[in-house]
């Protein structure tokens, strides 16, 4: 491969993601319960390629914002069985797949008008808000530079409260489903953006995170599970976004830190990409999860970023988008994370031309620095 010829095909990646924003084939029905996340990967990729404004129309972007706001819910009480807890929960659902109320234009016109924020009521046992989707919806709105005037902050705080478990972990939906470090991370990221940690037990959550640390130096998804790149990112980012008063509880010992660095560095394979677990093959998404984890530990300089970029270069599909490995079918998830990795582990010169220039990324929130700044400035409760 001759140097000087490497191109990051930003335009094609942006087009690929734009196509997904406009529609997904019916064979991907599994996307039904995670549309807000797919929206985030696509909008995030458009944000990273800096092509959001030129590739999409104002009316489209406004429409997407409206759609996301349609997913904000005002659910009934946390525990219907107990009379003492009458708090409702807010947050966002992944999409309208379980929504059963009538759209506003079909409602009877004799209903009284109110000044309340537009949030639909829902039965949280059948159409619950979802923690991961709430995080992705908020970041998507920040990418679209929404002013967040309509955000029901009390509802979001109540969702955080309703999803935290006795062991400090979080479920995705109130009172149901599995609990692991992915939801801890999204809860922490939301608290960080709101600059409000009052709804959750931070200390317990930190203890839970630490219980997921493994003998290899990475973190598993749940206590005693195998160390993996994604959970390791979630844990390290969580430990770093906490407010100062928790900093000492949230810090790793120096030995633990060194072991984590060693394990993360070990995951970079000879082809330049990263694997997620020891002795596995490289997969594009781990270029972000492991790379960002090292960045969070302030050890980004230990990565061979040019080799990483070479691997990701090979994961680009000719139709646009990135697959998990070279010649694999592209998808929005690997596309966004590949671009995010390249925005963090920057390469320029010696074969990597102008096309590799990307905006700076905030490794803790997983959004461009500008978008992260926008989110923090507009979410902070006054």
């Amino acid at each position: 491969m001759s140097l000087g010829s490497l191109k990051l095909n930003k335009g094609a990646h942006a087009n690929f993601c734009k196509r997904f924003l406009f529609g997904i084939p019916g064979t991907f029905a599994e996307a039904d319960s995670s549309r807000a996340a797919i929206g985030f990967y696509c909008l995030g990729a458009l944000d990273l390629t800096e092509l959001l404004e030129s590739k999409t129309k104002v009316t489209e972007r406004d429409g997407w914002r409206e759609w996301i706001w349609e997913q904000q819910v005002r659910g009934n009480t946390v525990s219907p069985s107990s009379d003492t807890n009458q708090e409702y929960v807010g947050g966002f659902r992944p999409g309208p797949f379980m929504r059963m109320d009538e759209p506003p234009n079909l409602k009877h016109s004799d209903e009284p008008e109110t000044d309340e924020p537009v949030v639909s009521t829902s039965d949280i046992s059948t159409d619950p808000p979802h923690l991961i989707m709430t995080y992705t919806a908020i970041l998507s709105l920040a990418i679209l530079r929404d002013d967040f005037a309509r955000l029901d902050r009390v509802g979001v705080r109540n969702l955080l409260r309703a999803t935290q478990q006795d062991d400090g972990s979080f479920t995705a939906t109130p009172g149901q489903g599995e609990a692991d470090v992915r939801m801890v991370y999204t809860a922490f990221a939301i608290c960080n953006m709101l600059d409000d940690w009052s709804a959750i037990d931070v200390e317990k959550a930190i203890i839970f995170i630490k219980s997921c640390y493994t003998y290899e130096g990475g973190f598993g998804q749940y206590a005693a599970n195998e160390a993996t790149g994604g959970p390791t990112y979630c844990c390290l980012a969580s430990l770093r976004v906490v407010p100062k008063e928790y900093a000492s509880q949230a810090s790793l010992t120096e030995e633990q830190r060194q072991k984590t660095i060693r394990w993360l560095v070990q995951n970079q394979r000879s082809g330049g990409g990263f694997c997620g677990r020891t002795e596995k093959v490289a997969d594009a998404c781990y270029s972000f999860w492991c790379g960002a984890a090292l960045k969070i530990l302030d050890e980004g300089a230990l990565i061979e970023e040019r080799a990483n970029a070479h691997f990701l270069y090979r994961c680009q599909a000719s139709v646009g988008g990135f697959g998990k490995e070279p010649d694999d079918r592209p998808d929005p998830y690997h596309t966004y994370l590949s671009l995010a990795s390249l925005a963090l582990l920057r390469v320029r010169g010696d074969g990597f031309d102008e096309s590799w220039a990307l905006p700076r990324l905030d490794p803790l929130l997983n959004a461009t620095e500008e978008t992260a700044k926008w989110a923090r400035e507009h979410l902070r409760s006054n």
Partner: protein
Amino acid sequence: MAKTEETGPLYAARPEWKDITPIPQYAENANPIAPIFYTEAYKDATDYFRAVVKAGELSPRVLELTESVIRLNPAHYSAWQYRYKVIVAINSPLAPEHALMNELATNHLKTYQVWHHRRLLLLLAAKRLSESKGEDKDAIALSPETELGFIASVLKKDEKNYHTWAFRQWVLATFFSPLSNLSSTLFSTSPMNEEEASAYRLSMLDDEIAFVESMLHADIRNNSAWNHRFFINFKLGTDVVMKSTHNVAEFDNEEKDIVGRELSYTKEKIALAPNNASAWNYIRGVLELAKIPFSSLTSFVLPYTRSHGQEADDDQIIDLDNPLPSSSSDLPAPPALEFLADIYERDAETLRSAEQSEQATVKEKLQKAIPIWRSLSEDHDVTRKKYWEHRIHIAQITCS
């Protein structure tokens, strides 16, 4: 009649569903994000699903409907949750549900919901057994032992599936741990006293180690199996990890024996494949857990750090404590070089923290590590060049 291969005729065409008015998906605005061009079958099944959920219907036919939705979208967590609700409400038998789950789990190994539903079923089976004082024969079909057998068969097909290993750990921690308030003995047909139950539990741990060994025999680089081995040895019986992290107590003899056994086992596996990072990570983990200095393995490690010439050969007297690299090994092995440098660095660190140590000996130790890191950065592990240079840099700061 319109029908789909997977789920049979459309619900709209089934006379027994005539009483239900389907609820179409909420009309989205003009610019929805990532709208899905639903297949006719999916639209039909979910329209009916929304309708029964809204009506709150909990009946056997809803089991069929949720199965259809799940087959069309195994990540439909609301369908899973509602299905479970129906099972509880109508006291649906668990054995057929479990059989269906065996099929769905095998086809959708990477779906979170498949595994979460199984957990709920096992817990429900345990509940029904304890409430019926063991009389609920249907629930016995979901015994944790049967479950371990099923998981083993799944892992034979997808040896590193994360969800499957995590689920296995959950089954063991829930039904075979002295720390859990549930026990697999709930499912046993003949009652056990406490002593028998504890002996049985220990025998299960032995079986589990044998299972891990069979997985490692098939693929010595299966890190999921190594991780599971660590879990069985140091988390499940007693929480040795907790003990070590918080220095709460000395290891008892049994724990010391396990540590010794694990060190021997891992050395043998390293001898077979000296570049296997999983085995090296494991042996490091065991040493750190037991607070045994890395230097105790110096004579084992040395032959792996040299070029060819010291491999095992049939005529040699075999030193069981220090198995030699197999003759086909690619030497020197980078993980062994790294380990040897770590021995020197850790020795230097120990000397430095000891009161009367001399600066000169600390330096001497570190000076031995530096050329090893250099050989890794320049020859044996150039992918991590920056990392090895970083290690050299840190050592040089300490030396100056």
